[in-house]
């Protein structure tokens, strides 16, 4: 059912097709500058800025939680985000690590608000 076409990072960036928008967190499209030379570790730059340019977002906004969501949907969303940003806390990219910490705080805040303290 699936056909997988190899895309190196440099091709992906030059191909004009942006990375898919994540359905959940409020992130901007990636803006990777250039690929590293072969055989050299490559770092993705500038993913997932957590702090918006215009105004400070609430933990719910950061986590993509809306008033229409059920408890089960909120729980699933928080789990997805926790997995993503907990891993991000170990990223090779310092910016990703920093952003991850802010997001983890937001995830905990939303969890405490909707499900109570541990």
């Amino acid at each position, binding site marked *: *059912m*699936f*056909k*997988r*076409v*190899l*895309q*190196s*990072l*440099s*091709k*992906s960036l030059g191909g004009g*097709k942006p*990375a*898919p928008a*994540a359905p959940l967190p409020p*992130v901007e499209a*990636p803006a990777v500058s250039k*690929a*590293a030379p*072969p*055989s*050299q*570790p*490559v*770092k*993705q730059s500038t*993913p*997932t800025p957590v702090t918006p340019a215009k105004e400070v977002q609430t933990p719910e906004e950061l986590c993509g939680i809306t008033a229409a969501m059920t408890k089960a949907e909120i729980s699933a969303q*928080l*789990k997805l985000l*926790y*997995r*993503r940003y*907990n*891993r*991000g*806390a*170990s*990223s*090779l*990219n*310092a910016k*990703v690590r920093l952003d991850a*910490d802010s997001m*983890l*705080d937001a*995830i*905990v*805040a939303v*969890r*405490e608000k909707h499900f109570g*303290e*541990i």
Partner: protein
Amino acid sequence: MAQYVGIDLGTTLSGLAYLKSDGNPEIVPNADGERLTPSVVYFDAHEDVKLVGSAARDGGDPDRTIFQIKRFMDDPEHVIKIDGRDWAPSEISAMILAKLKRDCSRIIGDIDDVVITVPANFNELARKSTIAAAEMAGMKVKRLVNEPTAAAVYYAHNQGVQGRVLVYDLGGGTLDVTLLEVTGDNIRILTSEGARHLGGSNFDEILLGAYDEQYRKQTGADLYSDERHRRRVLQAAEDAKKMLSKLQRVNDTIANDKDGGIARIDLTRDGFEKLVNRMLTRTILLVEQALDSVNLKPKDIDHVVLVGGSTRLPKVKTILEKMFGKPPKSCGNVDECVALGAALFAKKSARIQEICNASYGTLAMVYNAETGEEKLMNSVVIPKNSPIPCSRTQLYLTSEDDEKLIEVDITQGEDEDSRFVDVIGRLSLEVPPGRPKGCEVAVTFSYDENQRVRALVVDKQSGRSREVAVNYKGAGVLSDEELKRRSHHLRAMRIE
């Protein structure tokens, strides 16, 4: 010579254990008479000596003292500048290991082959740096083993448990949660999840903030103006934290370093638990993630085992008992069980089935023929939790006509979204020109017992192939040549 030796190279404390002839592991004390050695290195300004352990922690110039180097083992750009020289994190770790080797070999004989423990979520680079540190210290790493796995091995050996075990390992700098199944003498790891920068040191810093706040309120002055005094107050905060695990209320008297007066610090366990509550919630999120990743519920767990000094906090026991409906059990001495388990692991490794701790794959444009959708994704080849050693292959198609160079990015991380994975390397393969797009390329990832990854790309049409291990570059990463040179230097170094 000691045949089976295990080392817990911890964020705040390190320890070495060996397997006695009766099959039981024992901690070997250092030359200072301590069972565990603080993971701290001090570069003396007057003598050509590096102090490691309590002496380094307790009195040195903070600008020449390295704490918690383990937290930077995965940072390719991290270096420590002292006396005009750059020191890589692996070199600092090597000094700690050298101290353990030199001190302990006086008691148990030569130490050559060792098992070293690492956090479950240590990435490729951090594992490679740990192996390099051991080599510089004159030891060969027989295996790296995840800390919770080592602790579980010790717990199973000591308590004779069977069934599903959840190990909650809250140490000085990291949290690891591991699920495993014990059947007879065999142990099968089901999953390991880790959280970085979540451990006792974070609690100490939070308590330091409470000291600072109370001091300011009472005296109107700053509690500390330099790093040396901040370190002293941090030590006082850590002592208070330990007391709060036993007492409901603790008082301390503290002065600043500028004659700003004395303040009486009043701390309660309840207040402290409120301060660290959000950190503890993060730990529960990790436990939930571990359970979810293997489709288990709390009721499916037979034993919850506590490892790591920070599990002495009463609230840790409370929240886990609430979650699992049974009290968690302590793994004997929570500070020593990782080293003890590592020594056991050195002998029993054949009976322990470990898993791949991260997913590895490449970037690919994935077309869904059913929906017609296409998107750039992280295409996983080896999924997290695959039993190791393992090797998996995935077929891909080339994307362009007349493609002369096939480039395969090596990704680490399970997220489908390419923004949330690390690209840890790239493999390039030259292929004959003039071919249409859509030629088949087989990408194989292999994962060894030390959790190191290799990638192989085979162009099916031409038969050309190329294989690489991931090599990192950065100011804090030593080349093979540099590693050899610095090993010689380190072995001649005076380390006390």
